[in-house]
């Protein structure tokens, strides 16, 4: 259980930097604005969730990338790793501790801001779907964890700073901003420029499209609330490969796979 000591140290380090406090301000500010914009009946409650989700799907991954991409490489470059690993911690303890510590740093502003917003909801709206709301909060943290998996995994995989930075922010742009366009372009090329394929997509193509953590996040948000996002996945005739539980697996996969691959490279490296 020695990863706990690493996680505690890492979290302490973050509270000493301005990062955690800055994030708290930003998240609470954003949800403050969103609650101000939407007040009233049930329809507005959905609008509140939708605006929140739209902000989170862009912002949470970016924060996770920033929190994670220097996590390991910085300790290697500066030499603090010599102190950490001369203690009875394995390299795996170090990675798990870092990942958990940074996930907590991300989770605190997400959860605190949502908790604050829930007070506003109870005051202003007629109904408050508590369970769905809690699940949405956990889902937001899971989205962050997926990108922490990517960024921490990259941070372990090499000592070339440039590559880690490019890889981490590249992953954000490709998976978040350009994902749909890239998928569409690939399909159209595979189908020899028959645009009809975009309307009637094969099941595997829908799965690949949902394989981005952002898409999976939207898919699961739509499963919790009756929202008009991710309609392609929630349509009555959508194939099973885009069911909500598959989206859960996708998010788990984005935590486990990049961490696993990064760890394999890290574990065999001479420091």
């Amino acid at each position: 259980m020695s990863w706990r000591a690493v996680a505690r140290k890492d979290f302490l380090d973050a509270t000493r930097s301005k990062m955690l406090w800055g994030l708290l301000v930003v998240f609470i500010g954003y949800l403050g604005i969103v609650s101000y914009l939407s007040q009233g009946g049930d329809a507005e409650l959905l609008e509140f969730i939708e605006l929140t989700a739209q902000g989170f799907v862009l912002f949470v991954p970016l924060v996770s990338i920033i929190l994670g991409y220097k996590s390991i490489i910085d300790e290697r470059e500066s030499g603090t790793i010599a102190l950490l690993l001369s203690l009875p911690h394995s390299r795996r303890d170090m990675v798990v501790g870092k990942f958990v510590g940074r996930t907590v740093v991300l989770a605190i502003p997400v959860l605190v801001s949502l908790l604050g917003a829930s007070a506003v909801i109870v005051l202003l709206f007629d109904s408050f779907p508590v369970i769905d709301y809690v699940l949405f909060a956990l889902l937001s943290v899971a989205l962050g964890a997926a990108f922490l998996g990517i960024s921490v995994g990259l941070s372990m995989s090499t000592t070339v700073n440039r590559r880690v930075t490019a890889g981490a922010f590249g992953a954000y742009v490709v998976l978040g901003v350009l994902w749909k366009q890239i998928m569409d372009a690939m399909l159209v090329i595979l189908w020899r420029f028959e645009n009809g394929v975009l309307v009637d997509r094969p099941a595997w193509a829908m799965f690949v499209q949902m394989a981005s953590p952002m898409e999976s996040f939207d898919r699961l948000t739509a499963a919790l609330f009756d929202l008009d996002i991710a309609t392609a996945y929630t349509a009555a005739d959508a194939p099973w490969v885009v069911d909500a539980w598959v989206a859960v697996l996708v998010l788990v996969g984005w935590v486990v796979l990049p961490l696993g691959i990064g760890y394999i490279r890290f574990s065999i490296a001479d420091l």
Partner: protein
Amino acid sequence: MENISKRYGTVTALDRVDFTVKEGEVFGFLGPNGAGKSTMINIFLDFVRPTEGHVRIFGHDCQSEGKQARERMGVLPEGYEVYDRLTARQHLEFVIGSKDAEEEPMELLGRVGLRDESDRQAGGFSKGMAQRLVLAMALVGDPDLIVLDEPTTGLDPNGAREMRNIILQEADRGATVFFSSHILEQVEAVCDRVGILHQGELATIDTIEGLRESVGGGTKLQIQVEKVQNGVLDSIETLEGVEQAWLSQEDTQIEVTCSNDAKLDVVVELNDAGVEVENFRTEEASLEDMFAEYTGGSR
């Protein structure tokens, strides 16, 4: 330590280094910079994997069971950096938590003279203060083995003396101390046994006294004479206890390496041969010379 080799491509950093440190001894690991001392210590810590060979600490292989091996170790590594944003006390709390030890951070900070700095962020520490902090971290949990890689780097003479006292205190407690340095006097002052590493190879391993003896009897005589006569040097060399005699200055100065007891015999022999002794000086044979000899004078 069994036949440890480490190669980086075609460069051999360590070549079949093989030795054992006994429990409870203070072992000095001596060698010029770049001899491979830190590579060796990094293998103990599993920062670096040997190309060949095994290192075991308390029966645990440092590579496959590194965590267990490090549980009983306290380490002051080389090339570390402290956590800028954490205070001195938080550094110690981290180590105490990592080792499941129950110790008072302030007590340890007091031992290394950092009590008044306990709540300062370590980012503002000088190299010497950082070194004291990491020494305190190495002492957490009364480790059975303390590994110190160039511990006096960045310390002033006073700090170096305090470091030496702490090493001796730990040795008295029964801890094994493994201590690397490129400075002979430090090793000489505290170590029971010394290994000299040169260009990745273990040049020698012995006690301080053993090394002294191997230098040649322990004494060097420098004798000023009026004029050396033919054959005198040869007759000195036939004396018991004399190792070597030679002229260090044309006709007027002789140097002799010999055992302590033979000193007088040399002077008597010169007198008998009719050589007038004008001045006479003895020198303890210095380990410095020997160290220079082993390491090709590349200090």
